[in-house]
C-alpha cells in the first residue's frame, strides 16, 4: 500500500475541509477502499475518516411517506431494522443477501452504493488494458474472462458490471441521494448517481470532487410492502449476483396497478427497467406478462461471449421475482 495522510474528521464541516486536499478519499467502513488500496488500484494521497459522522448521519427514520437512511448507517443495522423489514422488504433483503455478516457490520450505506466493480481486469493491475483504471488503455475484458460482466448499459470501452445489491433496490424504488460538498447541498435522483461507461468508464458517478453522500430518501408507495429481492449466484451465500431483481408491485385483484423493477449483476450501473414496468401496467400478472416484461428489460442487452447465458438467466430472474412478489401477502 502506498503512503497516505490520515485525517480524522470530527464532523461534516471538518470532513469537507480535509477533503479539499488533492487525491483525497473518504473512509467509512473501508471494505472496498482498503481492499483496492492494497491492490494498488486506488491510490489516495489523503484518507478522511468520516466514521464520527455517524452522529449526524447515522439515523434510520420513517418520516411521513419516506424512509430516511443516513449514509453512515451500517448495512447490518438497516437490514435488521423492524420498520425497514416490514415496510420495505426489498431493501432489507438486498442488504442481508449481500456480502458477509462481518462486512455488513462494517460497510456504510453511503460507501456500499459506491462499491467498485469486481471485474478482474480492473482489480488486477498486472493487466495494462483497463479503461476504467487506466483511461485510454483499452478493455481486456471484451474478449477475455467476462462470464460475470455486464450485458446491459455496456459500451465498447467497458463491460464492467456494478456488483452491488442495495443500490438495485434504491434504483427500483426511485430513491434520492443527499449530497454535501464544497458548493453546498444538493439532492440527486438515485438513478442519476451512477453513470454509464460510454467513452469515459473511469468516471463512474455524478459526484463532484469533495462531495459526500450524507443519506438516502426512499418514497414509500402502495408497492413497497409487496416487494422482494431475488439474487441468483454461483454459491448460496457470500457471493456477488450473477443476476438479481428488485421487484415491488401494486396489485388490484391480479392486475398490476404499478410495478417497480431493478436489475443487478447484469448491468453497468444499478439498473431500473422502465420499459418492463410500463409494459406491466394494467396487465394481469401471469407468466406470459412476466415473460414479456423480462423480454422488455433485456431488449438492449449485448453479450460478449462467456456472459451470453446471463441474458436468459436475467430474464428468468425477472419472471420468478415478479411471480413470487405477486404471491406475497401484502
Amino acid at each position: 500500500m502506498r503512503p497516505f495522510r490520515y485525517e480524522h474528521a470530527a464532523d461534516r464541516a471538518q470532513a469537507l475541509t480535509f477533503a479539499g486536499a488533492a487525491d483525497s478519499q473518504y473512509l467509512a467502513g473501508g471494505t472496498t477502499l482498503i481492499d483496492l488500496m492494497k491492490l494498488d488500484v486506488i491510490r489516495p494521497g489523503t484518507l478522511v475518516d468520516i466514521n464520527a459522522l455517524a452522529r449526524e448521519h447515522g439515523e434510520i427514520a420513517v418520516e411521513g411517506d419516506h424512509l430516511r437512511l443516513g449514509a453512515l448507517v451500517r448495512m447490518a443495522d438497516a437490514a435488521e431494522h423492524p420498520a425497514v423489514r416490514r415496510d420495505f422488504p426489498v431493501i432489507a433483503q438486498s442488504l442481508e443477501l449481500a456480502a458477509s455478516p462481518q462486512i455488513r457490520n462494517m460497510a456504510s450505506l453511503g460507501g456500499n452504493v459506491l462499491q467498485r466493480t469486481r471485474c478482474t481486469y480492473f482489480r488486477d493491475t498486472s493487466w495494462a488494458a483497463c479503461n476504467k483504471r487506466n483511461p485510454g488503455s483499452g478493455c481486456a475484458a471484451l474478449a477475455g474472462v467476462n462470464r460475470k460482466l455486464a450485458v446491459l448499459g455496456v459500451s465498447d470501452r467497458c463491460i464492467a458490471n456494478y456488483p452491488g445489491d442495495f443500490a438495485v433496490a434504491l434504483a427500483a424504488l426511485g430513491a434520492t441521494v443527499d449530497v454535501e460538498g464544497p458548493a453546498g447541498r444538493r439532492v440527486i435522483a438515485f438513478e442519476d448517481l451512477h453513470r454509464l461507461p460510454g467513452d469515459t468508464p473511469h468516471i463512474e458517478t455524478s459526484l463532484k470532487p469533495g462531495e459526500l453522500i450524507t443519506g438516502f430518501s426512499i418514497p414509500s408507495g402502495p408497492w413497497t410492502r409487496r416487494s422482494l429481492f431475488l439474487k441468483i449466484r454461483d454459491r448460496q451465500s457470500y457471493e456477488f449476483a450473477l443476476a438479481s431483481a428488485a421487484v415491488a408491485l401494486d396489485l388490484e385483484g391480479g392486475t398490476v396497478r404499478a410495478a417497480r423493477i431493478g436489475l443487478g449483476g447484469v448491468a453497468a450501473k444499478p439498473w431500473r427497467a422502465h420499459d418492463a414496468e410500463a409494459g406491466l401496467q394494467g396487465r394481469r400478472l401471469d407468466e406470459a406478462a412476466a415473460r414479456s416484461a423480462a423480454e422488455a428489460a433485456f431488449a438492449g442487452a449485448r453479450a460478449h461471449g462467456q456472459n451470453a447465458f446471463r441474458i436468459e438467466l436475467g430474464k428468468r430472474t425477472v419472471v420468478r421475482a415478479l411471480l413470487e412478489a405477486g404471491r406475497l401477502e401484502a
Partner: protein
Amino acid sequence: MARDTGPGRGPSRRGLLTGATGAAALPLVAAGARKPEPRHAPPEGSPHMDITLSVNGRDHRLSLDPRTTLLDALRERLDLTGSKKGCDHGQCGACTVHLDGRRVLACLTLAASVQGRQVTTIEGLARDGGLHPMQAAFIEHDAFQCGYCTPGQIMSAVACVQEGHARTDAAIGEYMSGNLCRCAAYPKIVAAVRDAAARMERA
C-alpha cells in the same frame, strides 16, 4: 498503560515455532545464514501516528504508520497472533475480531480508525481461566482440521449466537458464510455452534 509490549506471558507459541524452525534449518543454511531483519521495523513513507489501541481490556500506546491494519497491529506489534491473516482482502474471515462487541474483519480495518473502541480477539475470549463455551464446543466436536480458520470461526460464531442468528442449522450456515474453511469442517462447525449456542443461552 503498556508501550509497545505484548501480552507478556513468557515465550509465545509463535516465538517457539520460529525458533524451532530456525534450529532445524540451521545445518542447511549455516554458511549463508544472515541476521534476520528486525521484525518491528516501521515501513517507510507515511508520517507515524501515536495512537492508543484498546485490546482485550488493556490499552496499548503505539506509534504506527497509518497504513497499518488492525490485523497487522495485533499480530506484529502486540504479538496477538491468534487472529489469522488468510486472504488479507476480506474474503475468508480468518481475521475476524470483535469491535465494541460486533464482528468485523481486522484486515480491512485501519488500526488508526478504531481508537477509543474496544477490540476483542480470540486471546480475550476465555474467562476466569476457563475456555469460552464456543472454544470448548469446537474442541468437543472436533470442528477443525488444520485449525488456521478456527480463531476467526470462533469469534464469528460467538457473535452469531449473540445476534440471535444461530437458532437453526440453516441460519448458522447463512450467518457463518463469511468464514471459509478450506478443510471443509463445516458440518462439525455447525454442530459446535449449535451446541455452544444452547450452552451460552443457558449461562
